[in-house]
């Protein structure tokens, strides 16, 4: 049986004005378990807290009920008081008789009566309270960043600057991501490479950062502070430690007809390659799908010309296992496939291109060395049509497009249009748009400049059909403002394709037990208040894996994610919330209902032996809750049909006791 002390606070006249505090203290004296009951002007004051401490000692109290303001105000205060008096802090319950009683009721008898009932409920609960101790777990002081685009780079740099080791896993042979493929960046029009490549170099030179390029995450185990990750380093058939990146092998490689993915297939590269000049690490990679030596053992030219002796045809995939305290997801995006958009003739004409292809066409390191030429015949296009929202904001065509706004297209289209007019004033540039969305610093000004200074022709309306005819593209669209149909004979059409999360994100989310929305964007722990954390503790989100973003937004989110990681890694131990779920394994059926509703992936299953009659043992599948991961929502407790799952601090019996006390 508990020995409970009840402490009724006046809160000056805040409570005492509508609640007869003496009557409350008197009434609660007779409740089961209560051995002491008193009232005081300000329970939260030093004198009030001393009163509680003394009572604990004098009356050997095992539990405390404070009838006062909201637990959201002073629960922590009174828990500390209890702790100071040698009681477990979780033996304290608060009856909220201010915010939810004296302040909302006007008549003294009603307020007093309700305060007594609320007090009784708290007493009933404390009777069933048990001391709780938060669990502790160590923290591995190393972070993993998955994805080496601008988001991953920024996050890694910020974490490394704080003094923690970071590993970047990038599936491509080089870091840099999509930003490396861009030409100029809005709204300042500085060149993407000029601002990105120094950061890439910083990463390469930072002693705290290791880059696992051409690598993928294979498996993730563990929980916040204690992740164990398996990383597959794919065989690149070149010894990274020896290769100097001189490029001699590339020059001599006889296999010249490999589509160059960096330029989106608009030109070719060799079977041994470095994706672009500023690649980090600047190490060659052999493409096993095209290398003659690897395919049929006939060639070996690169070995002959490699002075460093770095070529190794026998290299195998390598598995690396490493422990991490935190994981940052920065898997980025891909433009959606244009295959299903027949109306825009993307697959019929080479001169219908996506915006990312346009970036490469205008880039000095691109297939045309920066000259804007038509992919089909290399001629200079005189009429260019840009089509916005291709696959974005399309709720009616969910099977081929996306319902959401891709966010970046309005701005990059304005950029493309402006740059085209700037460099080639003779070109006629038309943009078809649904809406122009330019929220962002200097964004609207930028788009208006495209229209007002550069004379880009913006037409509100959608393009209905594009038909290649001769060397022209017949563009048919509607002008919603002039309310008329428009026909343009264009030389080049640029589609602002919607962006979607990288395909590798979904399996990764499963490995991380991090949740995703229906579009495969990672879900944040709270859309407003915890935007860079995933609901799974220790997993953070950076960049477009969480939703469409431009570069400035990505970089700021990357920094925010890094600061969250630093906050986690600087702790030596993680102290958990003791109000977590646990499963009574004797009653657990192992049915997986709880696992399915757990938003944090805190529940796993194990086969456990139970003693049976006649010295037998039964082996059953039972649920185990990881207290370091559980956040204590209680969803599992209701999903559990056998009642095996319960939540400390809010146990079934405790809540039921409160219900009984209120309904008595």
């Amino acid at each position, binding site marked *: 049986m508990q020995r409970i002390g009840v402490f009724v606070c006046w809160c000056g006249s805040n409570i005492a004005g509508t609640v007869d505090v003496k009557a409350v203290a008197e009434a609660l004296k007779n409740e089961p378990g209560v051995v002491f009951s008193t009232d005081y002007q300000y329970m939260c004051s030093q004198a009030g807290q001393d009163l509680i401490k003394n009572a604990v000692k004098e009356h050997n109290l095992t539990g405390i009920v404070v009838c006062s303001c909201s637990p959201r105000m002073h629960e922590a205060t009174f828990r500390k008081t209890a702790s100071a008096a040698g009681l477990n802090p979780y033996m304290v319950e608060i009856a909220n008789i201010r915010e939810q009683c004296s302040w909302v009721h006007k008549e003294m008898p009603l307020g007093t009566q309700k305060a007594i009932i609320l007090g009784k409920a708290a007493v009933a609960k404390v009777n069933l309270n048990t001391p709780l101790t938060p669990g502790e777990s160590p923290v591995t002081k190393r972070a993993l960043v998955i994805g080496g685009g601008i988001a991953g780079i920024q996050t890694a740099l910020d974490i490394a600057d704080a003094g923690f080791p970071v590993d970047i896993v990038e599936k491509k042979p080089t870091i840099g991501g999509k930003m490396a493929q861009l030409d100029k960046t809005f709204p300042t029009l500085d060149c993407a490479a000029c601002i990105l490549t120094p950061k890439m170099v910083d990463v390469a030179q930072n002693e705290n950062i290791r880059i696992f390029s051409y690598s993928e995450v294979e498996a993730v185990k563990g929980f916040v502070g204690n992740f164990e990750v398996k990383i597959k380093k794919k065989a690149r058939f070149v010894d990274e430690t020896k290769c100097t990146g001189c490029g001699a092998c590339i020059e001599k490689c006889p296999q010249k007809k490999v589509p160059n993915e960096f330029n989106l297939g608009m030109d070719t590269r060799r079977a041994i390659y470095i994706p672009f000049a500023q690649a980090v690490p600047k190490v060659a990679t052999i493409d096993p799908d095209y290398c003659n030596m690897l395919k049929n053992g006939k060639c070996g030219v690169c070995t002959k010309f490699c002075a460093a002796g770095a070529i190794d045809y026998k290299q195998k995939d390598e598995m690396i296992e490493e422990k991490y305290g935190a994981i940052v997801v920065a898997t980025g995006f891909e433009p959606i496939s244009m295959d299903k958009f027949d109306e825009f003739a993307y697959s019929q004409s080479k001169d219908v291109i996506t915006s990312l292809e346009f970036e490469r066409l205008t880039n000095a390191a691109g297939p045309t060395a920066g000259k804007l030429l038509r992919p089909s015949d290399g001629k200079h296009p005189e009429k260019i049509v840009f089509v916005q929202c291709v696959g974005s904001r399309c709720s009616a065509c969910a099977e081929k497009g996306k319902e959401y706004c891709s966010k970046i297209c309005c701005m990059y289209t304005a950029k493309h249009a402006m740059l085209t007019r700037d460099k080639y004033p003779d070109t006629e540039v038309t943009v078809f748009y649904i809406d122009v969305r330019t929220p962002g610093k200097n964004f609207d000004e930028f788009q208006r400049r495209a229209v007002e200074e550069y004379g880009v022709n913006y037409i509100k309306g959608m393009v209905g059909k594009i038909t290649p005819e001769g060397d022209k593209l017949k563009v048919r669209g509607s002008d919603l403002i002039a309310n008329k149909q428009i026909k343009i004979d264009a030389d080049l059409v640029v589609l602002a394709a919607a962006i979607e999360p990288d395909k590798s994100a979904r399996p990764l989310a499963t490995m991380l037990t991090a949740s995703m929305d229906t579009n495969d964007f990672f879900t944040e722990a709270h859309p407003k208040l915890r935007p860079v954390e995933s609901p799974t503790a220790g997993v953070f989100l950076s960049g477009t894996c969480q939703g469409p973003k431009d570069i400035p937004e990505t970089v700021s989110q990357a920094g925010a994610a890094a600061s969250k990681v630093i906050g986690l890694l600087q702790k030596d131990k993680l102290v958990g919330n003791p109000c977590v779920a646990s499963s*009574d394994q*004797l*009653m*657990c*059926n*192992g*049915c*997986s*209902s709880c696992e*399915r*509703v757990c938003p944090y992936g805190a529940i796993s*299953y194990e*086969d456990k*032996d139970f003693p*049976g009659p*006649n*010295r*037998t*043992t*039964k*082996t*059953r*599948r039972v649920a185990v809750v990881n207290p370091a991961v559980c956040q204590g929502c209680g969803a599992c407790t209701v*999903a559990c*049909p*056998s*009642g*095996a799952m*319960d939540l400390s601090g809010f146990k*079934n*019996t405790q809540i*039921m*006791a409160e219900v009984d006390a209120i309904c008595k």
Partner: protein
Amino acid sequence: MQKITTEQLIEKAAELMNEGKVASVLGWEKGEFGYDVTPGIFGSVDELKAKFVYGDFSAANLSKYLVKKTEMVQGQALVFLKTERKILIFLKPCDSYSFNQLLTEHRFDREKVYAVGVQCDGMVDIEKVKKIAGDGLLSVDTSGNDVVVKTLYNGDMKIAKADVLAERCVNCKSKKHVAYDELLGETGEVIDSNRFDEVERIEKMTPDERFAFWQNELSKCIRCNACRDACPACTCEKCVFDNPKSGVENKSPANSFEEKLFHIIRAYHVAGRCTDCGECSRVCPQNIPLHLLNRKFIKDINEFYGDYQAGAEVGSRAPLVDYTVNDVEPGEVFDRGDENA
């Protein structure tokens, strides 16, 4: 469609036993009277020949017994699991849904089971027979589409089988076996049944009428727990109503109101997992139409969240441990109901 006979099943079981594939058989056992069939476990061909029966009264859904029968028990010589041999279970289409649902919930090890699907021609409800033929039943046998009844007091009579078919078979939801290793006889299709008609009828009553209806039905409950014991979704290691820690444990009815709590919670705990096999109502000695509680949940779930049949496939996510962002609000549920009414 040819009828599947007891002999065919025994033959199949004997064959599998003799081959050493299965060690024991979960089936139906003859009782004192022909209509008195219970679930049984058979360890030998001789036992099968002596007691096994498959017919109009082999109504019991056997899948539930797999939970205990395939349990990993160590430390005793009797454990058949030490051998490679499996347990044979016969599954009617209804039972195969429960079989899948239990698999979804990891309640038994599929590797330890050999499942033979058996064709089902509908089960006879003995209570319906009694209503027509009166007391003193001596034997009840099927012959074609009729049931031949011999009685002590009222002589012999022939009743159309359709008139004495169990309610759940009249409203059969599926003749399709959704799980089996081998099939005896034919498997059919999912049927567009009228199983929700009765639920709709109750929904259309006024709240007072509904209350009166259920008070009348549930007040009959003697809290024998037969529904719980027969239900293939009620396989909890320990039921909340037996568990002192749950705060709701009680074993006997204190009054008519208490029964409601038990039956609502039971229905709620199986909601989304109940395959609508109808065992609860079949075994109820007081003939309470308990399946109407489960069907209400099934009907609601279908209407609110899209059609869902528990056990139709292994591994599906039960509707109550799932959600979509745009689910119907609890308050809107009733407005919909009013539109339907």
